[in-house]
């Protein structure tokens, strides 16, 4: 498979308008930071969700990751606000 599954939670999901999508980003999307920039171009909702990338957290394959973490075809990538459980 060439694509990635992307999941959204909390207000990131609200702004984008859905909770997941399957995407096939171009080859220059190699890490979380460049994936966020590319996703921001997909719709006004996406643009709003990623307008301040520092406010968005990410996980790759169920593990929290920093913006320089690589993303690869087949990964499950999630974007969400800082967690507020407990």
């Amino acid at each position, binding site marked *: 498979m060439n694509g990635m599954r992307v999941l959204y939670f909390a207000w990131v999901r609200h702004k984008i308008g859905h909770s997941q999508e399957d995407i096939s980003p171009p080859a220059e999307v190699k890490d979380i930071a460049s994936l966020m920039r590319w996703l921001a171009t997909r719709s006004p909702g996406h643009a709003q969700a990623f307008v301040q990338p520092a406010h968005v957290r990410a996980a790759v394959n*169920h593990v929290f990751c920093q913006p320089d973490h690589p993303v690869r075809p087949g990964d499950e990538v999630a974007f969400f606000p800082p967690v*507020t*459980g407990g």
Partner: protein
Amino acid sequence: MATIRVQEDVFDPQAEQVALTAGRADIGGVAAFTGLCRADDGLAALVLEHYPGMTERALAEIAAEAERRWPLTGCTVIHRVGRILPGEPIVLVMTASAHRQAALESCAFLIDWLKTRAPFWKREEFPDGTGRWVEARAEDDAAAERWRSP
């Protein structure tokens, strides 16, 4: 070895304590923390969202870290999701050990780390139908930071 559950239903701390201690005589203390839903600002309900699959993994890792740091005989973490009314419980962390300080410290550790390392998000609902996502608090980050390994 830890018991980890994510569920919509209310939990029973006493049943969990019995499960953790039944048939044993090597436990000196059980520490428990129950987080409850406060009716701040006239809140009507909290709605708890999580990341199925990642949540269980994150909670298991937090519990495993507690078991590495303290000599525990058992450890239970239960977190509710869905709609929670004021006064209802949200989360339970419970630890058992031969030694009181191990139980008390690991219980505080578990709730502090859970608050910053498990993928849950709270939305507040008000009686007029409006809602608001709860923002992460700097105090919670500071509380978790206390437990960072040197």
